[in-house]
C-alpha cells in the first residue's frame, strides 16, 4: 500500500510539473493581412485617374501612398504587428493567435502613442519603423501615419498643376476602427484577413480647390478631416 501511495504521489508530482503553455503556444496560428488597393472601387493605378469629387470630374495622378496599420486585435486578443502599406498589393504578417472563435477585428490607422515614440534608428533598415522608410518626420512630431500625394487638374484647365499633399501624424490623429467578422481559427492553420484599401475615400467631402495640402501641424482642421476620412478607407472582405 505504501508503495502504491508513493507511486501515485510521484505520478502526481510529474503531472503537476507539466506546463500547459508550450502546447497552447505550439498550436497558435499565424495571422496575415492580404491587402488589395483600390481607387474609387477600381484597381489602383498610378496613371492618370478620372474621379468624380463632389460633383466635379478631376484628373488625378497618384504619386505616393503610404499608411501605417497597427494595434491589431481579435476580440480582446492583441496582435503586435506593425504594417507599412504602400500602393502595392501584398500580404503582411501581423502576429499569432490562439485557436478559437472570434467575432471582431480591430486595428489602428497610424501608430499609437507608444509606437509613435519609437526611435527610428533602433530598427533594422527593412523594419516598418526604420528611418529608412521615409516616414519619420522630425524629432518633435515623430512619424507620419500616412501619406497621400497626388497631382491633379482640379480646375479642368488640362494641366496637372494642383498638388495634393496629406501628411498626417501626431498622436491626436491616430484612429481606431473595428469590423464585425466571424473568424474561426483552427489549430496551427494560417489565418488570412482580406483587407481592401480604397484611397479615394480619403477625399470624401473635401474641396480640393482649397483643402489640398496639410502636413498636420500647419493645418490641423484639415488634417483632422483627412484622418477621420481614413476610417472609411478600409474594409474587411
Amino acid at each position, binding site marked *: 500500500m505504501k508503495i502504491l501511495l508513493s507511486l501515485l504521489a510521484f505520478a502526481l508530482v510529474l503531472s503537476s510539473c507539466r506546463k500547459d503553455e508550450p502546447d497552447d503556444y505550439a498550436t497558435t496560428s499565424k495571422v496575415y493581412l492580404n491587402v488589395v488597393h483600390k481607387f474609387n472601387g477600381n484597381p489602383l493605378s498610378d496613371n492618370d485617374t478620372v474621379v468624380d469629387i463632389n460633383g466635379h470630374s478631376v484628373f488625378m495622378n497618384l504619386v505616393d501612398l503610404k499608411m501605417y496599420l497597427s494595434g491589431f486585435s481579435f476580440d480582446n486578443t492583441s496582435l503586435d504587428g506593425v504594417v507599412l502599406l504602400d500602393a502595392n498589393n501584398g500580404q503582411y504578417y501581423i502576429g499569432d493567435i490562439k485557436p478559437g472563435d472570434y467575432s471582431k477585428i480591430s486595428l489602428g490607422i497610424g501608430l499609437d502613442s507608444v509606437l509613435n515614440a519609437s526611435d527610428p534608428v533602433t530598427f533594422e533598415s527593412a523594419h516598418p519603423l526604420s*528611418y529608412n522608410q521615409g516616414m519619420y518626420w*522630425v*524629432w518633435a512630431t515623430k512619424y507620419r501615419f500616412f501619406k497621400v500625394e497626388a497631382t491633379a487638374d482640379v480646375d479642368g484647365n488640362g494641366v496637372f498643376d*494642383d498638388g495634393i499633399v496629406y501628411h498626417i501624424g501626431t498622436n491626436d490623429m491616430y484612429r481606431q476602427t473595428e469590423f464585425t467578422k466571424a473568424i474561426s481559427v483552427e489549430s496551427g492553420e494560417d489565418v488570412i484577413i482580406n483587407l481592401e484599401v480604397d484611397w479615394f475615400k480619403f477625399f470624401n467631402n473635401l474641396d480640393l480647390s482649397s483643402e489640398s495640402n496639410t502636413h498636420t501641424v*500647419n493645418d490641423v482642421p484639415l488634417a483632422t478631416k483627412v484622418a477621420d476620412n481614413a476610417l472609411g478607407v478600409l474594409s474587411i472582405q
Partner: protein
Amino acid sequence: MCLCALVVGLSSCRKDPEPPEIGPENYYIVVPQGFPTVESPTNNALTVEGIELGRHLFYEEKLSGDNTQACASCHFQSKAFSDTVDFSLGIQGNPGLRNAMPIFNLAWSPTLFWDGRAESLEEQALFPVQDHLEMDETWDNVVAKLQNTTKYPPMFEAAFGSPGIDSVRASKALAQFMRTLISGNSPFDQFANNGYFDRSYLHPNPTIANYIYEGWQIFNRDYAGPGIDAGSCFHCHTDPAATRLTTDFQITNNGLDDVSADLGLGGVAGFDPVQDRGKFKTPSLRNLSYTAPYMHDGRFNTLEEVIDFYADSVQAPANLDLDLYHGSINDKRGAVLSPIARYKIKLFLESLNDPSFVNNPAFSDPG
C-alpha cells in the same frame, strides 16, 4: 600511483592549443551616438586588412588608364571627399557629367550616385574606373597592373585569406574603406548628444548659438502661410535630431529647372525618362562648408545661393516633389524665408560641419 594516473588522465583530456587563427581580423564600426546601426553585406564583412587595402586602392593612381588619377583625385578628404569644381576632369581632360558627390555616411545609403543607379558600395566602386569620362581604364588592366607590384598581392591575400586579385575583390575592399568614412562629430551632434539643452555646444558665442538653434527650428517648420518663416527642409533632409543622417535617401525632382537637361533617375534602366526626369538623390547636409559647389551639376557656389533658390526660384516641372509646394503649383513653391531666417538656416547648416572628419588621419593618403 593514483595521483600519477589522475595526472595522466587530466593531461589526456587537455586539448592541444588551438593553432593561431589565420585570416583577416574582423573590424567593427563604432557607430556615433544617435546614428542607426550599420548593416554590412554578409558577403563583404569589414576586416582590418580589407579596409586598409581599400584605403590604398582609393589613393592608387594605377586604377586609371594613364596612371595619373585615383579616386582621391576627384574626392579630396579636405572637401569631405568631394571635388572643388562643378565637373571633375577625367584623364582625357574631359569633364564628367555630374558633380563629384562627397563620400561619407554611405554605409546607410541604399543607393549610390546622383541618379541612384548603384545599390551597393561594392557595385558603385566598379563604375568610375571604366567610365571614359573619368578614369577610363578596364578592370582587366587594373588587375594586371596591381598584380605586377610587390605591394598589392600580399595585401589582397591578407584581406581575403587567399591569393588572388580581381575586380570583385578590389571593389569589395574599396567598399569596405568607404563604409568606414563616417562623419558624426559636428557641433550639432555634440549639442544633441548632450540633451539639446546647452547651446554653447552649437557655438561659443551665445548670439550665434541662438541663431543656430532658431535656424534648426525654421529648418523643421512646415509652410504656415505667407510671411511666416518656414524652411520645410526636413521633408527631404530629415531632422538631424531624428536620424543624424540629414537625408531621406529619396530620389526626387527639387525644381531646379522646368525641364531638366539631365534625365537623372529617368536615365536609369527601368525608370521612366519622362516621369523620372530630373530626379536626383537627396544629399546629406553635413559638411556643406567643405563640399561646394552644390547640386548635381554644381550650379551653386555658395550656401546663400542654395537657400535663395529654395526661397525664391523653385521651378515647376510636372514631377516636382510635392513637398516643395503649398497647394497649387502656380501659387508658391519652396521655402518661405525672410533675410534673417536665411542667415539663421545657413548658420544651422554650418553647425553640421565636422572638422574631425576631414582631418582624420585614418582616412588620409597612406602614401
